[in-house]
């Protein structure tokens, strides 16, 4: 069953343009110019109950705009949107009770108060029975291992602890959909890993559907079986996360340290030398050739070898570049076909 459906969803912002200088400021008092920026363009999307979908894209791709439209915070400019059977921007309380949103940089907690105080407020706001409230609280405090932190002021919590509390506050009323915007931003690797594990459990055990926006590919890779790549408000990719990385993660980075000088080593032309010192080489090779080059290097008795996958940033950049090129080519092809078909049509007429 689809819990989110959009068709040709578009959001356009209007921006005020002020000419430079004092004269521009004065002129803009009576003659104001605006430019339109399309944040989301003709976006078609469906999400089934229980899915965990990752939204990736560079800054300004439209990820947050999309989340804001799903939650009703902003109204679409055109197109159709249906979330849990509602038009989100009607802002009906019945609708708002069925989802939760956690924005990494915007807290729902009261810094002067304790988490227990905030949760008590959320219990009343979401109309939870005492028994349901206590059961949910017990489940999450145990899952997130934060039982000892419930009665301390929120402002004294670490960033990782605070994010766990944000998630508890958001999940307390058992929402059907959880929207997460950069939940691991600023967290260290351990805390980020914990958050990922909790989210995975919540999705599996509580059947909570999750839309996760993140710049950290590790979040997306670890959690989302499906992901969407956005760029300039358009969908570049919608499909399996594994396939996406299989397709775009093409190189291996090999770092080799030698006990002797590495000057005399001859390398094939497909190997790119990223860094070279007398006793160390950092190489980039196509992933299917990594095994071959490694066995070659073993002849020089290296003292240390590390093999890393393509850096996430490189992969993302590649996705954007190539998907964009592909889309442009397709559009161009469609236009050409349309021109031919129009011309054909003209002949037939």
């Amino acid at each position, binding site marked *: 069953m689809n819990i989110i459906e959009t068709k040709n969803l578009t959001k356009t*912002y209007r921006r005020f343009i002020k000419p430079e200088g004092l004269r521009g400021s004065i002129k803009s008092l009576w003659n104001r110019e605006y430019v339109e920026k399309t944040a989301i363009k003709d976006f078609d999307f469906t999400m089934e109950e229980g899915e965990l979908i990752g939204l990736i894209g560079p800054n300004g791709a439209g990820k*947050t705009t999309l989340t*804001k439209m799903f*939650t*009703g*915070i*902003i*109204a679409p400019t055109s197109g159709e949107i249906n979330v849990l059977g509602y038009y989100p*921007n009607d*802002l009906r*309380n*019945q609708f*708002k*009770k069925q*989802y*939760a*949103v956690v*924005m990494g*940089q*915007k807290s*729902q907690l*009261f810094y*002067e*108060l304790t988490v227990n*105080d*905030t949760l*008590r*407020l959320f*219990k*009343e*706001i*979401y*109309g*939870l*029975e005492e028994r349901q409230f206590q059961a949910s609280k017990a489940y999450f405090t145990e899952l997130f291992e934060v039982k000892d932190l419930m009665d301390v*002021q929120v402002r004294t919590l670490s960033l990782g602890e605070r994010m766990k509390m944000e998630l508890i506050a958001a999940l307390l009323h058992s929402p059907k959909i959880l929207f997460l*915007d950069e939940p691991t931003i600023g967290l260290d690797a351990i805390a980020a890993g914990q958050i990922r594990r909790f989210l995975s459990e919540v999705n599996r055990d509580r059947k909570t559907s999750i839309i996760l926006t993140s710049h950290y590919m590790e979040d997306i890779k670890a959690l989302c079986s499906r992901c969407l790549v956005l760029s300039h408000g358009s969908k570049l990719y919608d499909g399996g996360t594994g396939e996406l990385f299989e397709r775009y993660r093409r190189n291996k980075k090999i770092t080799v340290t030698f006990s002797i000088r590495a000057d005399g080593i001859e390398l094939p032309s497909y190997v790119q030398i990223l860094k070279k010192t007398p006793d160390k080489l950092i190489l980039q090779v196509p992933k299917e050739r990594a095994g071959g080059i490694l066995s070659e290097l073993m002849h020089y008795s290296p003292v240390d070898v590390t093999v890393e996958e393509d850096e996430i940033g490189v992969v993302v950049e590649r996705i954007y570049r190539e998907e964009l090129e592909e889309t442009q080519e397709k559009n161009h092809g469609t236009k050409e076909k349309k021109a031919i078909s129009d011309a054909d049509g003209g002949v037939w007429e």
Partner: protein
Amino acid sequence: MKMGMSKYREIARTYLKMQLAWRADVAFNMVFTVSKIIFAYLLWGMIFREREMVAGFTLYGMLSYYIVSSFLSQLDMSAGISEEISSRIRNGAFSNYMVLPVSIEGYFTAMETGVALFYLGFDFAAAAVWVFVFRIEFAVTHHFFIVMCAMIMALMGLFFMVQLNYFLGILTLKYKEISTFLMIKNNLMLLVTGGVVPLALFPEAFISVMKLLPFYYVTYLPAMLFTGGCEEEAVRGIVVLAFWCLVMQAVITVIWRRYRKKYDGVGI
């Protein structure tokens, strides 16, 4: 699922708890309240040393008016609402309110109630100091009906101020910058409540016009009613204020419906 007012009660309680979070803040509020009392007692004591009556008030009548009006004006903490809404709309944090299953206006009313309850505690403490330490005899009206009118009017006045500040706050959706609106409101309030020039110095016609506006009934008239003055204006005051509350609510509904779509949540 429980519905209704309990969420707003809990919001008020939460904001009351927030006021109590800082011990030094509470302590300094206490000191400020007592020093205000001492200052007022000394000031009016000096003025009344030479004469029995000032502007129709005896010393106790004047002190009673001062206590009640400062009591009411201290309860009105609504100015913070417009600033809070405005800054949150501008930095995108207003989204936090939009995703909660509550009426946003109701949320801010409850928030104001929580903060006001904190100051109400100090007001009662101050009243106790007046009565038991300074042995002030409160010059209050003995008419139950007038006391009821004054209380209703005071509550409606506080509610109207919440509405007004909420209205000004949501104007940020359209105008982005509302400091000029706030300045106009503040100056109008000062003028109409006699804060700039005593009301008695204005021509009769001007005062009559001001009495059609709600501000006269927010602090000044309830304070006068409690202390036994202007009793003939009690019912009219409630009617005028109720009218303004209804008008303001209608305006808020229209403005919210129209401008909420302009919110872009920039900053998140």
